[in-house]
């Protein structure tokens, strides 16, 4: 048993913390989110130069880390500062299939992605698919001029700004079969690709994507991509669970400060036991989540069932704890917690909306149960 961080990870944590503390105040974050791209390309490149994107990838993919503990560490820090830059879309969702399924141009593309020069996105979920990981109606057909895709993709994170899209499609099988799935690389300017970008509730960007006879390059052998899709989702769920942890830590800190300074009935509201106990319950659940994130990070390289159970446990707890912390922190703040001007509600919104990505707490609870029964 060993819970201390390695020297490399300690330095990574310090780098991330220092940059975000000194260069990423909340006003700037809001300004970045309000840009057309939904983030600041300049700050994205700065953070990439510090190695924060490369930390999400293993050395064989041009990265500097890539283990569960690296992903958890980076995303906890991103959560603490409510970062909107496209770490998840590029460093996890887009880069993982390129790393796993290779292909001739993968090496250069991964290098460019890790350097902050090329934005990636994963177009996997579909309008009717909700959270089912193998639900893919988009079709892929091979013709004389190569592969062509047709279908629709839903809520593609940073899909409007990405230069390359990793797109899932079906080459065979029924709508939710795990067999018959393939991943493809699609250029942003490809004919037949339509993207409708939009802002999301908590300040990010996403896109609805339509593919009509759209040319695409296969990643790996078409038909066998499901294990990679599952791994990509596992890494994303770990990243988001760790982000919830960081968000919750900051929301807790803001709320504690409010409890120490806000006075009613002639004393700080933090002296009221009803509020103290609610805060302690939050602290306790945050520690539970921290433990679940550690476990999922440690099991990211484990055999499939063990990995998936630990990841679903973490994402389930992240959903429950995120909602609890968001609701309780708003409640303890009272009216001021309802305003756009205050910092807290922006954390609360991200805390809640993460539950809508890659499976909510109910989805992962059922998945955790089903994986347990299989063994």
């Amino acid at each position: 048993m060993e819970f201390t961080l390695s020297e490399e990870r300690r330095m990574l944590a310090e780098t991330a913390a220092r940059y975000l503390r000194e260069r990423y105040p909340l006003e700037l974050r809001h300004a970045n989110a309000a840009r057309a791209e939904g983030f600041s390309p300049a700050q994205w490149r700065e953070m990439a130069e510090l190695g924060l994107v490369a930390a999400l990838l293993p050395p064989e993919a041009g990265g500097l880390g890539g283990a569960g503990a690296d992903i958890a560490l980076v995303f906890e820090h991103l959560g603490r500062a409510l970062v909107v830059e496209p770490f998840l879309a590029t460093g996890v969702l887009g880069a993982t299939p390129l790393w796993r399924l290779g292909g001739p141009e993968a090496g250069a593309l991964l290098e460019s992605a890790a350097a902050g020069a090329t934005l990636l996105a994963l177009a996997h979920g579909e309008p009717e698919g909700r959270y089912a990981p193998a639900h893919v109606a988009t079709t892929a057909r091979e013709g004389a001029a190569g592969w062509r895709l047709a279908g629709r993709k839903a809520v593609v994170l940073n899909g409007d700004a990405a230069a390359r899209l990793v797109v899932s499609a079906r080459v065979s099988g029924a709508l939710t079969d795990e067999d018959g799935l393939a991943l493809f690389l699609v250029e942003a300017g490809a004919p037949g690709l339509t993207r409708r970008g939009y802002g999301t509730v908590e300040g990010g960007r996403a896109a609805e994507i339509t593919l009509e006879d759209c040319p695409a390059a296969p990643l790996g052998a078409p038909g066998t991509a499901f294990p990679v899709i599952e791994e990509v989702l596992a890494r994303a769920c770990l990243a988001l669970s760790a982000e919830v942890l960081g968000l919750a830590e900051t929301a807790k800190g803001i709320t504690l400060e409010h409890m120490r300074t806000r006075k009613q009935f002639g004393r700080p509201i933090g002296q009221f036991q009803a509020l103290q106990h609610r805060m302690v319950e939050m602290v306790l659940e945050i520690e539970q989540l921290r433990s679940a994130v550690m476990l999922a990070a440690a099991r990211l390289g484990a055999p499939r069932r063990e990995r998936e159970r630990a990841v679903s446990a973490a994402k389930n707890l992240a959903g429950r704890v995120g909602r609890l912390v968001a609701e309780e922190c708003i409640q303890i703040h009272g009216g001021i917690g309802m305003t756009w001007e205050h910092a807290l509600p922006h954390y609360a919104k991200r805390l809640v909306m993460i539950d809508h990505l890659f499976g909510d707490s109910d989805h992962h609870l059922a998945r955790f149960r089903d994986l347990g029964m299989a063994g």
Partner: protein
Amino acid sequence: MDLDLSPGEAAFRDEVRAWLAAALPARIRDKVRAQKRLTKADHEAWHALLAGRGWLCLHWPRALGGAGFTPVQKHIFEAEMVAADAPRIVPFGPNMLGPVLIEFGTAAQKAHCLPRILSGADWWCQGYSEPGAGSDLASLATRAVREGDHYIVNGQKTWTTLGHHANAMFALVRTDPAAPKPQQGISFLLIDMASPGVEVRPIVTLDGEHEVNEVWLTDVRVPVENLVGRENDGWTVAKYLLGFERTGLAGTAFSRQGFEHLKRIARIEQADGRPLAEDPAFSLRMAEVEIDLMAMDVFNLRMVSAANAGEAIGPEASLIKIKGTELRQRITDLLRRAVGPYAMPFVPEAFDEGYNDAPIGPGHAAPLARQYFNMRKLSIYGGSNEIQKNIVAKTMLGL
């Protein structure tokens, strides 16, 4: 970061497991497994076996006859004990008074008491709570008045666990009622239960069991050499002891064992023509508890690991106590619900050794409602969970 046991830790676990498999008498193991009542002799026999191996007093240094375990070793040992269906170590002498005497006791107290805890010559009980002093322990009213070389003690202690087996009690008593703060007038005394004026009366708890007692103290004469620490400084001693008490309160090994038991029962019990484990609602309740248990396990290991590295465990112990006890209670709740109507029969004699009648309903059902009600104590004792929240709010959050 590594959540798995190191080779050295795994070797220690194997050593403990092998010894338990060989040393734990099957008769006692079967009683624990079936949740039957253990007699005083059962406890004493098991303590003697542990003491013979040097594993009775886990906290104590080896030079004093203890196991000298590191926090990680202690954690592994306790988990193996639970998994082997061994009786838990009755904590009052080995885990509570022993460490207090090692820290605060006089040379004479150590020389007299420690060997007698190891040999089983003394069975200690804890005289803390009073009818008027529960969560507000410092308001305790039992009086000790110095008269020559004795204290004369008058008062009433309550919730004295296994006090009916004990021949000795460590107690908090008020020696200075005029002290400016209630915590300042308290002393820590060792009381011989055979002294005139000591009367033990049973309290039957809601499950029909006799585990706790009232202890009435009327003009009990206690020699002054039985004072531990300084007069009026008993609160310091009590707080030190509390630290040892709380470390064991997470009970993750019990939760894990209870959950495995729940899984077995849920595969046997039928609901709507299929195993309860496949019932849509019940299976999700089980899954949620299991997720919380997995996280709790890691949370507990983080604390054990920090303690192993020599870090002081402060209010985190309170967090562990709250979550650990809530989880154990949730599991006993699901266990009771798992057996449906067969949670109802109340046949107290079925838990005595030698009862051989066929059980009413499935054999696994009989102890579950009793256990559920008994386990309500977890969130009350050792500082109620609300008191723990007060501690966290004050010391960890600065509120």
